């Protein structure tokens, strides 16, 4: 059995597609788990996307933290006798999966980019050394726990002819001693850098938050543009919501065109954009490492270069 869990429904569908492939190879089944949401329609949606079974898991607790999620998943792994567990690699999945692995005394690979059987052994690939290498790891334990980032695998197309079983499980969970006392939602424009075709990305070279308008102008001139940023812009200065954050600890993007403005090009940033089509860098320091990762570069002050580039692009468009 392959067990699937993510609190993001789109990611769940992508994991089901991968789970389906692995299950078909071994003649087993795919079971998806939904925690704390008792809704047949949501369950059916997962069946139409390839899940053989959906478990709607319910408990009598209100708050879920990694400590409780782990208990729920452990019970379901044991109940379904799962050999493989696929978990979405967002921040919540990444703190649940290793804890679950420790509870089950088994192996775990986080942020897996490819997963397959080789000579009957489950093999997982993941990025290592900030994108300088790919590590290929074999599981020598079961169940094998894997976290997979969103957009890594394509979901199966929806087929309402697919049939599956919906079951409900009431589970007892011991409440953890820690408590969530507040959740604040920051404003979000719902940008999705992962799907962007063109990204104009801003770094510490910008002196003020308002100056990011320059990048916005360029993004508009390029028409299909979306704004991205380096970690300090989102995490330290908080000039942009973290939806825009690109890199090892942010989002991984592959646009056709990536324009890095005032970004030094530290390897943790490169890790998030190295698969981009064409890379353009604008930086006043000719020795900035970003130029090594760029196809085209201009050495200069972004405050002079960007407005002129906007003009030149507009002219080029005619």
């Amino acid at each position, binding site marked *: 059995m392959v067990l699937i869990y993510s609190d993001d429904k789109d990611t769940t569908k992508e994991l089901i597609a991968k789970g389906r492939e692995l299950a078909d190879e071994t003649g087993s089944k795919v079971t998806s788990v939904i925690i704390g949401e008792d809704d047949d329609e949501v369950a059916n949606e997962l069946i139409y996307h390839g899940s053989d079974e959906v478990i709607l898991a319910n408990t009598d607790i209100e708050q879920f*933290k*990694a*400590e409780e999620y782990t208990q729920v998943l452990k019970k379901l792994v044991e109940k379904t006798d799962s050999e493989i567990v696929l978990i979405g690699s967002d921040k919540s999945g990444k*703190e649940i999966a*290793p*804890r679950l*692995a*420790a*509870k089950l*005394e*088994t*192996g*775990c*690979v*986080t942020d897996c980019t490819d997963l397959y059987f080789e000579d009957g052994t489950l093999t997982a690939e993941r*990025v*290592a*050394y*900030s994108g*300088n*290498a790919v590590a*290929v*790891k074999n*599981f*020598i*334990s079961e169940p094998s726990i894997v976290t997979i980032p969103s957009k890594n695998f394509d979901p199966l197309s929806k087929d309402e002819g697919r049939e599956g079983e919906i079951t409900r499980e009431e589970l007892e969970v011991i409440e953890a*001693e*820690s*408590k969530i*006392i*507040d*959740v*604040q*939602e*920051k404003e*979000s424009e719902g940008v999705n850098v992962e799907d962007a075709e*063109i990204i104009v990305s801003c770094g510490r070279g910008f002196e003020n938050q308002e100056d990011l308008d320059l990048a916005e102008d360029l993004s508009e001139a*390029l028409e299909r543009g979306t704004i991205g940023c380096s970690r300090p812009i989102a995490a330290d200065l908080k000039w942009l919501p*973290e939806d825009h954050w690109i890199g*090892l*600890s942010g989002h991984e993007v592959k646009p056709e*065109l990536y324009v890095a403005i005032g970004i030094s090009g*530290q*390897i943790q940033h490169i890790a998030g954009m*190295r698969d981009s*089509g*064409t890379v353009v860098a604008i930086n006043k320091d000719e020795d900035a490492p970003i130029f090594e990762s*760029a*196809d*085209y*570069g*201009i*050495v200069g002050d972004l405050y002079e270069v960007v407005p*002129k*580039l906007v003009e*030149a*692009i507009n*002219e*080029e*468009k005619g």
Partner: protein
Amino acid sequence: MNIAVCAKEVVDVSEIKIDEKTNKPILEGISKEVNDIEKSAVEEAIKIKEEYGGEITILTVGSVDNMENMKELLAMGADEAVIISPPEESDYTVVSELLAGAVEEIGDIDLVLCGEASIDLFSGQVGPRIAELLNVPQITYAENLDVEEEKIVGERDVGGNKIMTVESPYPVVVTVTKEINDPRLPSLQEILGAANKPINEWGPKEFMDHEIEPTTEMKDIRGVSMERKNIIFDEDELEDSVKNLAENIAKEGLLEG
């Protein structure tokens, strides 16, 4: 308040080159350092000690090539370091078991601090695994901590633009992001003063009551190299440079929607 901080030295990832013949990353000869995230964990421990007293022990699994790295953490303000040698075959299961075992062996630890992940492989497994093995709560990705006598309150960025505030009694495992603080640079005085702080070396058999087996194995590691054109436009006039750039962007069909 007694604190254990898990910190290790890692290769400087920005120095890694790929061996063209074997297509493997060359790790030999690359300088090793304790990364900023783990230094931030040490810094946070020191701040807590300054307010509440107690002992700070640095725990590291693996051989330490450069003792100066451990000494730097002691000079910052940690009291003691323990270097644990792993069995020949090791993975996150083994490392976490050893760290959790060492925390139990030391005893009376209120708080275990780790980085959100270490910079070399960025798996982020060790913190949550230790929390489970010790059967205590976890607060991951903390970017702010408020320490009180009976409880700790952490703010964590949980993604999806949500900031969650979690409180926990002790003992607890906390992983921090590098935004939580700026780690201090020890003064020369502190570096000299740390020379006599103990660095202990432990073998697993000395404190583990059970055998630990790895659950995954590294089958291969292959290099990824990136080929880029690396063309810099530097005409006398900036107008000409941006024009060249715009033309090239257009030539690649990027201006067509």
